[in-house]
């Protein structure tokens, strides 16, 4: 089982990513974030195996 989260400032993209992730067997998309700081906090509590990240985001890239 691969646990992963996705971070993107556009909710629409996260929706697409969720759709793709659900089609891949053995991959669990635990949560999606538009706010990278919240994603960071989440990671501190629950380390994951895979991060799906936007390459350019406001504020943080």
């Amino acid at each position, binding site marked *: 089982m691969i646990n992963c989260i996705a971070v993107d*400032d*556009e*909710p*629409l*993209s996260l*929706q*697409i990513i969720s*759709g793709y992730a659900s089609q891949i067997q053995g991959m669990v998309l635990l949560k999606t974030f*538009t*706010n*990278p*700081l919240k994603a960071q906090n989440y990671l501190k509590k629950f380390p994951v195996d895979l991060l799906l990240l936007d390459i350019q*985001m*406001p*504020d*943080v*890239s």
Partner: protein
Amino acid sequence: MASVFPIGFYYLNYYKLIPLFYLQKKPITYLLSILLSLTILIIIANIFTYLSDNRRLYESRPPFPFLIHSLLLFVVVLFVSLGLRMNSEWKKAEEEIIKIEKEKLNSELSYLKAQINPHFLFNSLNSIYSLAIIKSDQTAEAVMKLSNLMRYVILDVHIPFVPLEKELGYIINFIELHRLRLADNNQINFRFSGNPEGLLISPFILVPFVENAFKHGTSAIDSININIDISLVKNRLDFKVDNNKPSKYFENQPSTGVGIENTRKRLEMIYKKNYTLKISDTDNKFEVDLTLLLT
């Protein structure tokens, strides 16, 4: 020695009389000043001759030859100075026209460049792609909005004045397309009041301020409010845009201010005295207040 006076008249005419009267479109004053100069010159020339060694010569002849001589010299000096001055005036005017033409071209080019923002186009296409994948009902509408936007950018940007509805339509479509992709922490409030019918506006005079708010006022983290307020009272348009600025979590690229500066130049060129623009840029807020008298 007597030639000093015509030379003096040459410079007087070149530097004072022509710019003061002739170029200010006061031909009668100019003519009178010329006649006055002529009279003074003839008197001086005659006195001069009278006092000089040619006194005997002067007495022996009628004053006619001196008069004709002075008059001839005067006319030559008059036309030479007038000709030279007008020549330099024409050259100056021509240079001015070329300069204005160049400036116009430059500003036009740079605002065109600023308009077709490839980032925005790709973002919108990306949103539409996502909408299509999830088979959203909004897909068709979003394509239509983008198409209307592009039509305005490509076709109407060359027209000096367009109906106000077109500019407003662009802003509304622009906001809608941004709403598609932005997360809930970015709140966009658009208000409009008044009747835009029959009013004209220079295209893309309001849009840059809206674009600017979205460019610098969106965040993935902070709560953002973008307020766009447009109200019309008869032909007076009040346009207010403000956004709070996201905190700087990392070094952002600094804003160049080119877009706003260009628009200010265009306002100055097109609306001259019929506009006021106030921009306040503080640490956490950016505010634009523009008033335009439309035609």
